[in-house]
Structure formats: C-alpha cells, structure tokens
C-alpha cells in the first residue's frame, strides 16, 4: 500500500497514503475536526456523527473518521451543511445528557462539555430535555467504577475498550432505538459481573458516565484528624504521569515534586510502593526459583509452572473469572500495594512505635482495580484493613489542586523512611516487562552470582509495546547451589492488556508454549497506561511515560532489588528470609474462582 492519495481539504491540497481516512488527512494538515466516538486505541465506530464533513458531489455528509480518503476528493469541514449538522448533533447529545456540569466529577474534563463550549452560542438548549423522561440509573456498587447512565452519550468507546483491549466485554450495547444503552449482563451492577475493574473504560469515556469511585474526601478527613497517623505509598507509574494533570509536559518524571506535594498536603509519612516492589521481587523471584527446583530436582508433580506474576489486580480478577484452573500458577505474592499495606500496620507501626489501629494507610495508584484489591477480604493480614484508601493518580492531582499547591513551582524532596527506599528495578514495575526484568536481574544473580548478561542491566528483549513478547534467557555458570539449572533456558513471556493475556493463556492451555515465567499487566503498556492515570491516553502518551520510567531506572544508583538496603534490613530485622513463615503470613495470598459468564 505505498500508493498515495491526493485530495483537497478546505481548499488545501493534501497527500496521504492509501487506506487513511479523511480524518487522518485533515489532521495531517492540522485541520481540526471534532470527534467523540473516535479513539486512536480503538476500532472505528462512526456512530457519534460529530465528525461529519461534506464531500463535494456526495448525497449525504460523511463521517470523516470512517470514510477512506480517495483520490480527487474535495472536502469541506466547515460548510453550511456541516456546521448545521454538527451543531444539531451536539445539541442532540446534550439533550439526552445530564448536563449537570458543576456537580459532575468530570467538570472541565469532559469532551462533550468542550464541544459545547466551542459550539454553543445561543445560551439555551435547542431541543427538549430528554433526561428526565428516562429512567436513568447510577451504578455505584463497585469500589472501583461508577457508571452513571444519565451522562452516557452512547459513543461505545467503553464497549470497544472492554472488548478489543481487554477481551472482557463486561459492558455491551443493549436494546435499540430510544432504549439503547450501554449495559452489563441483565443490567447487573459492575460489581456483580465479569468486570476486572481495570478502568480502561474510564480512561476512554468522553463524559462522566464512567468514573472512578473517589475517596478524596475520606483521605482529607483522615489527614485532618489529629488522632490518625496517615501513611501514603506511591506506585511506580504515578510519578511519570501525575504531571500531565498538573500542567507538566507528558513524559516528565515528577517524583520529587509529588513527594513534596504529599508532605504539604499533610500525610504523616510519604513512602514508596517501590520499596515493596523490590520486596516483591525478593519473594516472587525466590518463589520462581523454588518452583523450578521443585519441578526439576524434586520432580514434584504438584508444582505449577509456568508461574505468572500477580501484581496487577485487573489481571488477577480476569484469571479468576476466565482461567480459574490456572489460579495455582499465579505467584502467591501479594501485589506491592498490599505487601506495603500489610507491613505498614505491622513492621512500620512497630518500628515507629505507632498503634496500628490509628494508622490510615493510603495508596496512590495508576489503577482503579487496586481499589477493589484493597477491599478484598484476604487483604487484612495486619489484623486491620491493610490499605484503607486507594487514590488514582487523577485523584491525587485533584487533591494537590485542592491543597492550593502550585505543582510546577514545588521543590523536590525525598521519600520518608522507613519503607521509602527503592531501586531502579522497582521503578520499572510501572512499564510492561518491568516486573519480568526486575525479577531476572535478581534471580539471575542468585543463580549465577553474576549480573544478567545485558548491557547496563537493560534486558531489552522483554521491553517494548508489542502485545506479547517471548524471550529466552540461557542460564550459564551457575553457583553450586543452583547447578541443576546449568545450561537451562528460562522461557519467559510478557503481555499487557487482557486481550493479550488471553492469547498467552490460550497458548499455555493448548500446550503450544512451555513458558516458565509469565508477566502479565492488565492494562495496555502496563501500569503507566493504567485505568487511574491521567486522561487522555494513547500509544504516544504511553510511550512517553514508558521512556520516563526507563530514564528513572537508569538514573538510580541501585538498580537491583536485592541490593535495596531497606529490603536487606527488613529481612534481617523482621521477615527473616524470602518465603519465611512471616512472609507467607503477611506478603502472600490466595485466589478465588469466580463466575466465568
């Protein structure tokens, strides 16, 4: 398809490769055509009709997102017909949309509102308000996601996200005509269906129809309560995206400013999930090696391989629903968030001599599924709810604004101690392939006594945006204790987005692949593309965040989890060794089979 197409848009000649749409052509010459149902990550729907343009000679207007550009087209994006149609379409959407903007969580972050602000000149609603004629419902049962049908404009971005990116299809389109709506199975609550809480639908909802359940006020209340000791942990991926919601350019690392902001807001201790990410590597890496030993040396038939990572709660719920027969293949390690939570109300409380009952444990996550994870009944090994509140990156940005802070002008500070120290290996947890890379850096060294044989420790084969990435690491020069692995080839696979996760699991199921270690992140790009990250998202933004993650890693003085001094200390003082009894009690968990359909 190297043929190129010549056409004219608003009098300007454009050349574009065959197969591109009118919208692509317009964007190539910086002609802005408004869109709503269109999203770069998704297949074209062509149903909102906001992007219609006039093609000279055509009977009707055409949707520029769906119409292929063809030679000789003469296109007008602002003709009388286009303007009239566009205004009417926007007015129609407004008439079925609960435009209670000042009360809306998405106020000033709503694509429909943006369009209205551009196109509305009359000061009054053109058409009859349909909202009150409909029995709209709000589903607020899920701890992660709130679905408010009164704000829905039926663009189906959420439906396509859930189907194409996540292969979950918890959301679908139901009914037709005036009754048509976005619905779960039998209009059940999102909480009661196969939803993984990944929040990718939220990232792509143009309005406030799908939002995270926010705990901003609860967290402020805790902070402002003198009797509470509020600790906060920040996930690896938040520091490369938070800035986007606060006027900082995409792809900037804002760790130091974020820490300062959290301290100014009034958290009693600002700590790092990266610390427990390093701890996860210790536990999970050891678990993998132990499983390999049991399988290869002890020939223990009960040992399950491949072992899969368990950091991503969206992935966990997905496998619980979809491949429950593989639950024993999941690492028993809790996610870094929950390891941190369990330690905050035990180890941290002891060391700081604080009554764990008075500790409020907050996490800042790029993720909405983490809210569900923190609510799981298994996550109370400290004797309390290990993590009390989970805030998304977006909620933190909101708190920072509410706190009156000029984020860009904040100085940079370091995390508090204890549980604030981390390595480069922990930082890369935020990108797809990061857990794999971090685990390999440590496991390889345990087995061979040498660093992984990759330049600057950068295990590039497991990095990238390819949906499924297989890599084989040959183990050579083992230390005596691990010599049974001499010459072995460790087969790994890394996948991100649940559609890719399904592909991997199908291969495992059919026996087509004989992996040893699987890393799966529920969201496209890994946590940097998480459902709690600043909106919008697209491949370009995810790539910039990923580059920032690897920059942060490269700049860290320590880049291997087992060298984290606080990790060494916690094993010495508290846990003993990886997979010890205490670790099992606090840092490991189990899983639950859930309904598949």
């Amino acid at each position, binding site marked *: 398809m190297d043929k190129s197409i010549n056409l004219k848009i608003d009098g300007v000649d454009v050349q574009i490769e065959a197969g591109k749409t009118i919208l692509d052509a317009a964007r190539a010459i910086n002609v802005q055509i408004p869109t709503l149902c269109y999203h770069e990550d998704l297949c074209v729907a062509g149903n909102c009709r906001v992007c219609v343009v006039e093609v000279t000679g055509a009977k009707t207007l055409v949707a520029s997102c769906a119409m292929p550009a063809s030679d000789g087209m003469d296109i007008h994006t602002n003709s009388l017909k286009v303007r009239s*149609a566009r205004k009417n*379409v926007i007015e129609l959407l407004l008439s079925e949309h609960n435009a209670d903007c000042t009360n809306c969580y998405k106020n000033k972050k709503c694509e429909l509102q943006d369009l209205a602000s551009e196109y509305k000149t009359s000061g009054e609603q053109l*058409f009859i308000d*349909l909202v009150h004629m409909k029995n709209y419902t709000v589903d607020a049962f899920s701890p992660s996601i709130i679905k408010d049908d009164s704000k829905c404009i039926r663009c189906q971005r959420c439906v396509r996200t859930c189907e194409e990116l996540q292969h979950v299809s918890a959301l679908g389109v139901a*009914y037709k005509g005036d009754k048509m709506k976005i619905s779960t199975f039998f209009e059940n609550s999102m909480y009661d269906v196969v939803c993984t809480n990944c929040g990718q639908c939220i990232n792509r909802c143009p309005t406030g129809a799908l939002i995270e359940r926010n705990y901003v006020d609860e967290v402020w209340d805790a902070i402002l309560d003198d009797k509470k000791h509020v600790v906060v942990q920040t996930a690896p991926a938040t520091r490369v995206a938070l800035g986007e919601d606060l006027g900082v350019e995409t792809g900037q690392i804002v760790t130091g400013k974020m820490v300062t902001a959290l301290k100014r807001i009034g958290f009693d201790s600002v700590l790092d999930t990266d610390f427990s990410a390093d701890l996860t590597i210790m536990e999970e890496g050891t678990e993998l090696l132990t499983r390999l030993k049991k399988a290869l040396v002890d020939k223990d038939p009960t040992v399950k391989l491949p072992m899969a990572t368990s950091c991503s709660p969206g992935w966990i719920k997905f496998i619980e629903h979809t491949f429950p027969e593989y639950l024993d293949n999941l690492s028993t390690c809790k996610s870094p968030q929950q390891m941190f939570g369990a330690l905050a109300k035990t180890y941290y409380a002891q060391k700081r001599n604080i009554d764990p009952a008075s500790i409020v444990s907050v996490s800042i996550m790029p993720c909405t599924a983490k809210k569900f994870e923190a609510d799981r009944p298994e996550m109370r090994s400290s004797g309390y709810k290990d993590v009390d509140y989970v805030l998304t990156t977006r909620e933190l940005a909101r708190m920072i604004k509410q706190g009156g802070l000029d984020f860009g002008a904040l100085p940079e500070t370091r995390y508090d101690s204890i549980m604030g120290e981390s390595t480069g290996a922990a930082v890369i947890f935020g990108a797809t392939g990061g857990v794999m890379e971090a685990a390999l850096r440590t496991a390889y060294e345990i087995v061979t006594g040498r660093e992984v044989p990759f330049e600057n420790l950068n295990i590039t084969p497991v990095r990238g945006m390819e949906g499924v990435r297989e890599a084989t690491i040959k183990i050579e020069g083992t230390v005596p204790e691990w010599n049974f692995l001499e010459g072995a080839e460790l087969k790994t696979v890394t996948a991100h987005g649940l559609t890719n996760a399904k592909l991997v699991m199908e291969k495992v199921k059919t026996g087509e692949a004989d992996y040893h270690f699987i890393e799966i992140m529920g969201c496209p790009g890994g946590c940097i593309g998480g459902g709690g990250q600043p909106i919008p998202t697209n491949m370009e933004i995810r790539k910039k965040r990923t580059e920032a993650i690897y920059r942060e890693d490269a700049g860290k003085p320590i880049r291997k989890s087992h060298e984290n001094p606080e990790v060494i200390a916690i094993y010495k003082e508290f846990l003993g060794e990886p997979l010890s009894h205490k670790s099992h009690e606090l840092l490991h968990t189990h899983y639950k089979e859930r309904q598949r359909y």
Partner: protein
Amino acid sequence: MTYNKLKRIDLIFHEDCECRKVLEKTFSKSNDEIINDILESGLKGRGGAGFPTGLKWKFTAEQPSDERFVICNADEGEPGTFKDREILFRVPSKVFSGMAVCAKVIGAKKGYIYLRGEYRFLLPELRKALDAFHRDIKDLIDFEILIQMGSGAYICGEESALFESMEGKRGEPRNKPPYPTVAGFKNKPTVINNVETLVYAFMICKHGPMRFKELGTSDSRGSKVFSVSGDTPIAGIYELELGMSLDNFVEEFGDGDTKAVQVGGAAGFCVPRKKFRETIIGFEGVPTGGSMKVFNSSRSMYNVLHNYLGFFEEESCGQCTPCRVGCQQLIKGVEAVKKGEKKAVYLDQLLKLSETMKLASKCGLGQSVANSFSSIVENFREEMIY
C-alpha cells in the same frame, strides 16, 4: 411531464414457473450474457433504494474471493409493505430460481433467505417448497439455500444490518464503504437483493430483457408490485407498470375522498392531493419499495406522523446520534407543538433537525425519517398545530 397510464401487469404471480426449464436455458448462457441481459433490462432494486441489479451482480462476480453469497432480503418491515410475503407464499420457487441464477453468475455455493420474524408462519410451506427446489436443481448447480429468521427488528432490512444479524449480532448498520459487493456477509462479496428483485431477474431470464424493458419509463423500467392499503376499497397487492402518475393511482384505488398518499412507507414521502397530478411513481419521481398508503380527509395527518415517528423512535438501531436522539426529538417536538408547549416555529427547528438526520445519519433509516417528516409537516402544517 409524461407518464404512463395505470396498467396492471402479470409477471410476478403468473403461475408459469417451469423453473427448471428456465434455469436450464439460462445456465446455457455465459455469466456475461446473463449479466448483460439483466443490465439491458434496466432492472433496479425493488427494495426501495433502486440500485441497478445487473451492476450489483457484476461487481460481486468481479470481486476476487474464495467465497461469495447471494442473500434474499425478505425482512419486509416497511410499514405498508406486504408484497414479499405474498410472493414468498404464492411463487416461492421463482424466488429460489432468481437466487440460483444469481448464484451461478457470481459463483455462490450458498444462498440465504432472511425472513422477518413476523412471517414465521410461512416457514413450513417455504421449507417444503425449498426441499422440492433443491431436489429439482441438484444436477444443475451446486447451490444450497438456507432460511434464516429475523426476530423483530425493522433495521435488519438495511443490508449491512442484515449481515450483522445473520452473523449473530445486533442488527446495526456498518460504515460504508466497503459495500456488500466487496465485503458483505462474513465480509465476503455478497449480492443482497429484495425478494421481488430476484423474481424479476428470473422473469427477465425467462422472457428476455425486452419484455421488461418495454414497460415503464426510461428511469424506471418494468413493473412493480405495490402494496395498497389505507382508505381504499380495494386494499391488496397489485403488479403495476412503473411510471404512472399518482393522480391515476388515486383514481383507481382511492375512495373518492383521498387527501394524501404516503408513497414508500414510513420512510417514504407523503404526497398531498394538490400534487397528485405532478407526481410520478418511479425513480424519477417518488420511488417506493411498494408501499402505497391512502388517507382520506377524515384522517389526522398529525396522527399519521406521530405513528410513524413512534415507529422510528423504537426501530432505530440506536447507534448513531442523529437517528437515535433525532427520532426522539421529532416525536417529542411535534407533541409539544400540538400541546402548545412549544411555539409553532419550533416546527422549523425540527425541519432543520430532520435535514441533519438526512445528511448525517449513518444509514438509510435515519436518513429517510426526514422524508415523511418534512413532507407531512410542510404539506399539513396546520394539522400539526391545531
């Protein structure tokens, strides 16, 4: 303006099937010859849109593919249309034969009849006729026809929605291009023709293109089966030569007090008495899939419009904004004007809206709501208000 006198024709229902004999004769010709016959006849699609049938077959045949399909669109849902039911009831083998000719021309091994759920009672007889047909043509062509039932969705008559439905999905129209001739059912090149079109194609094979071509006008060749209902003493199904004036039609079918005729169903146009004389029924005038609904002066055109809008509000697939919300606004709007909650000038706002629906909707359903809306509102404005 020239038009034909109303003339009854007897091609479709004439009990002259001899299907096997005609198929044998037809199959002795080359595909190009058959396509040329169809093209020469001037046959255009009888579902309402009026695309030249020969071209459709030709494009599909020329599209490279390992598999092609012929589909008979029997999802006759347009209000006021019931001729396909009658054709399938009375001369099913002609329909099958038309499909078989198309299958030979395009190289299809499988054909489908998508029958609307409301016609399920036809199924036992249709199956019997189909079995007999299959037996009859076994040695002539490797071609099998299957029947797929609809389940009550007007929009599935739209060809791409029909494919979606046949693929087990919601009947939501697709973006076009690609067109069915390139990517239809299962994304394979597909001919989808209305029941009546297939029978005419077969009759053209039987009688040769001239017999068809000599009927009608230069833009609207041949005859057409009309479904006549409403305020008429002789409601029913009539095969008439195309190109008659509405005046002529009303003379024959009206009850002496006809005030308007809705041509083409809810998606068609309402023609008031004063325009009967100048209105030609055909592609050069007012096209129709066959629905002719007669209203006498006792009828409230507000009620007629309201009924149609209620129909569209419910039967829109709901995916695109202009149609989904537009239909709701039109019906709520005319109600509000009627009740005096909105000023009469709001009708002009609604007319503009209907124009947007015509220009910006994704498929023919949304695009055609404006036909009845604007023709009724513009011609019977007073009735909308008082």
